[in-house]
């Protein structure tokens, strides 16, 4: 599963700069009618990451967010340029460690809530305050399956 995930990311990188903008090199013949319409290939990185300078990829190792579709081994994109709001999935700093949880405001109090009943919600200590490292914007989950052809 992880291997195919690599392939997926790699392919996003590998193919983008390669495709020629103008492919017509036929000395005699009719120019390709598509030449005037060739767009740049789709760049998934650009599409997904609005703020590349402040977006960091991380691999998730725990299962505390499984209910939000974030599985162990998944990649998440964390953007530091976004402000967390009620309901955001965030990377927070709790006792000097990073943790990925959903932020919830209840009666003026901030909670870090897991998406797995096995983990109790965590009240943010008022004296320490909430330290949000970044907001999780995407999860990249490999589905696996399929066999290479050819």
């Amino acid at each position, binding site marked *: 599963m992880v291997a195919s995930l690599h392939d997926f990311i790699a392919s996003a990188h590998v193919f983008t700069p390669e495709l020629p903008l103008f492919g017509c090199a036929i000395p005699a013949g009719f120019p390709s009618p598509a030449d005037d319409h060739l767009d740049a290939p789709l760049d998934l990185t650009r599409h997904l990451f609005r703020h590349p*300078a402040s977006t*960091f990829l991380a*691999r*998730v190792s725990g299962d505390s967010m499984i209910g939000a579709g974030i599985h162990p081994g998944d990649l998440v994109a964390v953007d530091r*340029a976004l402000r967390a709001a009620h309901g955001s999935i965030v*990377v927070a700093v709790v006792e*000097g460690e*990073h943790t990925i949880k959903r932020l919830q405001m209840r009666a003026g109090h901030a909670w870090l809530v897991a998406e797995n009943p096995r983990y109790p919600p965590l009240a943010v200590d008022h004296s320490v305050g909430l*330290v949000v490292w970044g907001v999780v914007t995407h999860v990249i989950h490999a589905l696996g399956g399929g066999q290479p052809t050819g």
Partner: protein
Amino acid sequence: MYALVDCNNFYVSCERVFAPQLEGRPVVVLSNNDGCLIARSDEAKALGLKMGEPYHLVRPLLEQHRVRVFSSNYGLYGDMSRRVVQVLSRFAVGVEVYSIDEAFLDFRGMGLLEKDLHAYGVRVRDTVKQHTGIPTCVGIAPTKTLAKLANKLARRLGTNGVTLFEHPDQWQQVLAQTPVEEIWGVGRRYAKKLYDLGICTGAALAAMPEHWMRRHLGGVVGQRLWRELHGQPCLEWNPAQWDDDDHLHPAASGRHSVACTRSFGRPQHDAAVLSEAVATFAAKAAEKLRKNGLAAHLVTVILGTSRFAAGPDPSTHTAVVSLPGASYDVSVLTQAALRGLHRLRRPGVAYCRAGVVFSGLETAGQKQLGLFAGTAPDQQRSQRLMATLDGLNAKFGRQLVRLAAAGAAKKPDGKPREPAWAGRSAHRSPLYTTVWDELWQLR
């Protein structure tokens, strides 16, 4: 106006972004090969640890105070530096990358857009911290030299990390309290000369007549310094260029050489190991050359023995090989470097460091055809080959495609192969942001 943005204890700050438990604790980063201290957190500075102190000497002190020690992780620091510059580029029309942790911003005309430059500086600082996690200080002044001074002050005052010099009396006051050697552009040699003449502070220096500076401090260099200290900008401005893919290309102008040098983990005398090291450095420097659109005429090979070894020989030996024509081709440059090594190496002598320096640089496109430099089709082939090589290495990273002379990148089992000359880096943190296998982990 110019702003100088300087990252605080940059290498330590990079480590802290991914290890928040290090906040408030003493942290140091070691040089290549775990030799000496090259970055210290404020807490480590407070313990009296000095820049450049040999690691093995301060080790007991580090252990006693439970100082967290890191080997340098340039992959991480380079990526974080790139991110900081990318954020900065939104705040000014031009950014000049001065070093891995410092950049100048072009604030000329900014006063028309922003009434309060100090507040704007605070915004720059807050945004860099928010977006990258890296704390900075900002100095804003009419010249680069004064911006540097303002930055130092901002760091020392530790208030909101921003200092603005708008009026001459503001910087004159600070110059009066600044030792002359702390002025940017005053080297150690000139500082000594100035002290001998009784000129000890920046203010005393600025008070000398312009023609005196011209005569005694290196001609036009001294004159420029005088003007800079009086608020008249006259240093060059070399902004970085961004390409269509948002990749940053630092200004190449003013560059006189491109180098790659390293200390070995252990002294090496084996010819094959030394060749592999020199070929590797040549390839790295050649890649840098091409990135900057340059070609080199001269290849210098450096071999260093231990500075502490007994014997009459100097510890650094160099050999220069000149090429028939300027080149950026890795095979041409590697061959030249290996020839230099062959000339230089003495059998049985153990070397601690090696390096390759390319000089006699010119812009790649304009290069003159040498008599033996090959015909135009040859050159076109070389150009295409190098473009393909750089493309592949950009994709797969870490010089995966290389000349055999530089040794294999991977072991037969596919794991990265550590060359015999590789330096010690016993305490390196993961390459959190640039290598898939070492990616930042979240629980």
